[in-house]
């Protein structure tokens, strides 16, 4: 096996990536390419340079993108010790419709090392090295191990046609942005996680993670390291009652998150049971809901061809007449939400409400995914229960009027989207517990979307710092 070691140079990161605000940052990231000759990062299949990635083979492009992502982290973090990543691209589990994209994690945690800010507290390897100012453990040992799927999109049994986008410019279209996935997983490897089991509440080896000193259950006011196992387990499924208390993240919230909860306020003589304000999930595409609400009459869109799905075809005269100058109500499914929104926009609608088809237990509908960045009207999702009420209210409409009106905007509460009323960042605490996804991610209700939410949103950039992202600030809270 050939092993190739790369040092992700800060010169590249600082000069060509245009990073700001971290001029004093300096961390050298060493990438150990552990792939054998001819595969993974050494794949010699010819490739055309794409999106700023100059590689001319598949392997070279993969390695360049990996190095690029490492450089983004390296230019942001500060450490006197090198951060070694053992990296490979290998075939991982796939089906025609799903895939394991990759994995990453710290290889060790440390406690009670020299200069540790807290005794008996677990720190991820790279962070422990930084705080100790020394290379702990075995000489030259890697701090992070990372492996990503080399088959993605390349054969019929591995999500065909939906491969890695290896460009550096974020123009991934319907492909999967390799750099963003790398940034997310590297973040976990660098310390964006607790080693405490959220499902059982048990601490790793009986000791709290540094993470647990900033994670608080707002229902009890206790930090995680102060809780019993049972209290931690309950806190991990408390939905909007799990918050981050680190000062750096808290201070940045007004600069990063939108103020006001995205919501729809229904009114009118025919509103019936839907009258009032409900939470909505925003879309990754189109304009975001703003502080100035969009107001209009709601009109439903009917399916034009049986089985084609509501709103999935260019609107016929009946649908176009109904939604002209109004807010279109369309049921989720069959085609993408962005396709429905595109058709509604072309027919003259001013906004779109997508009614969910599946019930879920969350405080807010999840965002609408999509990648069309040319849409000019907003779209949002409402819960299934609200969709049923709205459809009932619209049942007695005429062809051009319903008597149901909606105000779409950020008027759902005096707090930031993804923060609690006291301005603390919400951490992901779904009920039922989703191991791993839970606790070690920002909450999915954050808007703007954040890199370290459990899902990869299509509108994510590559920023790690404000005004776009709070990932690095959380890392600073834990000691970076």
């Amino acid at each position, binding site marked *: 096996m050939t092993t190739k070691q790369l040092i992700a140079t800060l010169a590249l990161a600082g000069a060509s990536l245009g990073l700001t605000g971290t001029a004093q940052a300096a961390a050298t990231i060493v990438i150990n390419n552990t792939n054998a000759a001819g595969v993974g990062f050494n794949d010699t299949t010819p490739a055309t340079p794409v999106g700023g990635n100059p590689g001319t083979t598949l392997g070279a492009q993969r390695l360049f993108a990996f190095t690029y992502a490492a450089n983004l982290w390296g230019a942001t973090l500060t450490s006197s010790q090198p951060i070694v990543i053992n990296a490979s691209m290998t075939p991982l*589990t796939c089906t025609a419709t*799903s895939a394991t994209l990759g994995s*990453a994690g710290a290889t060790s945690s440390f406690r009670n090392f020299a200069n540790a800010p807290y005794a008996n507290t677990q720190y991820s390897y790279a962070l422990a090295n930084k705080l100790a100012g020394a290379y*702990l*453990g075995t000489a030259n040992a890697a701090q992070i191990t990372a492996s990503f799927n080399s088959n993605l999109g390349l054969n019929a049994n591995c999500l065909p046609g939906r491969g890695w986008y290896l460009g550096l410019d974020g123009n991934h279209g319907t492909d999967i942005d390799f750099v963003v996935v790398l940034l997310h997983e590297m973040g976990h490897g660098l310390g964006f996680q607790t080693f405490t089991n959220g499902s059982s509440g048990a601490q790793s080896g009986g000791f709290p993670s540094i993470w647990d000193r900033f994670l608080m259950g707002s229902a009890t006011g206790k930090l995680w390291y102060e809780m019993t196992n049972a209290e931690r387990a309950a806190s991990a499924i408390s939905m909007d009652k799990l918050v981050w208390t680190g000062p750096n993240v808290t201070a940045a919230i007004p600069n990063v998150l939108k103020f006001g909860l995205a919501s729809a306020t229904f009114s009118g003589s025919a509103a019936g049971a839907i009258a009032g304000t409900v939470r909505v999930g925003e879309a990754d595409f189109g304009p975001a809901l703003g502080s100035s609400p969009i107001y209009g009459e709601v009109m439903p869109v009917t399916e034009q061809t049986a089985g084609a799905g509501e709103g999935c075809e260019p609107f016929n005269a009946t649908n176009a007449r109904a939604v002209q100058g109004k807010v279109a109500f369309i049921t989720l499914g069959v085609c993408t939400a962005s396709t429905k929104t595109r058709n509604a926009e072309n027919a003259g609608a001013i906004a779109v409400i997508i009614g969910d088809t599946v019930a879920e237990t969350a405080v807010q509908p999840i965002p609408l995914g999509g990648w069309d960045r040319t849409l000019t009207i907003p779209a949002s999702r409402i819960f299934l229960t609200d969709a049923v009420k709205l459809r009932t209210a619209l049942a007695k409409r005429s062809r051009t009027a319903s008597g149901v009106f909606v105000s779409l905007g950020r008027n759902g509460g005096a707090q930031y989207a993804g923060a609690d009323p006291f301005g603390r960042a919400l951490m992901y605490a779904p009920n039922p517990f989703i191991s*791993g996804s839970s606790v070690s991610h920002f909450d999915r209700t954050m808007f703007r979307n954040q890199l370290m939410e459990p*899902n990869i949103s299509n509108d994510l950039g590559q920023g790690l710092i404000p005004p776009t992202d709070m990932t690095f600030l959380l890392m600073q809270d834990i000691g970076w």
Partner: protein
Amino acid sequence: MKKTISVSAGALALAFTLLAPLSASAGEAMRVVRDPVTGEMRGPTAAEAAAFAKAEAQLRLGSGSKAIVKTPVEIRYADGTVETKLDEDSMMFSVVSANEDGTLNFDCLPAQEAKQFMKDKAPAKSASKAKAAAKVKHDH
């Protein structure tokens, strides 16, 4: 400086103690073995040295998923530092699935949940079950 590796599974029949020259961050260490018969510390036999090298290679997690340690291991250093070797369960996995409408669901899960996620998506599942599973995660 001295460090002790504790392996809680039966991967090693003996308790190995490493004598490193300077600090927790020092490099190659001298190896001594507690003799299972006499209880005395001595240099390893060739077989013991080979077994140790194999175990240590696994601990380094250095060559991809095949080298991931399955059993948590703690190493205690003389200066009080404690290292916990992390196994696959501490790693985070990104997974993705395609919806009927062509959009993708992303999630970030630990190893066991990621395996279950892929198992649920396997073709062997009935169409109705797969469809139901897809609807549960409907991030489109």
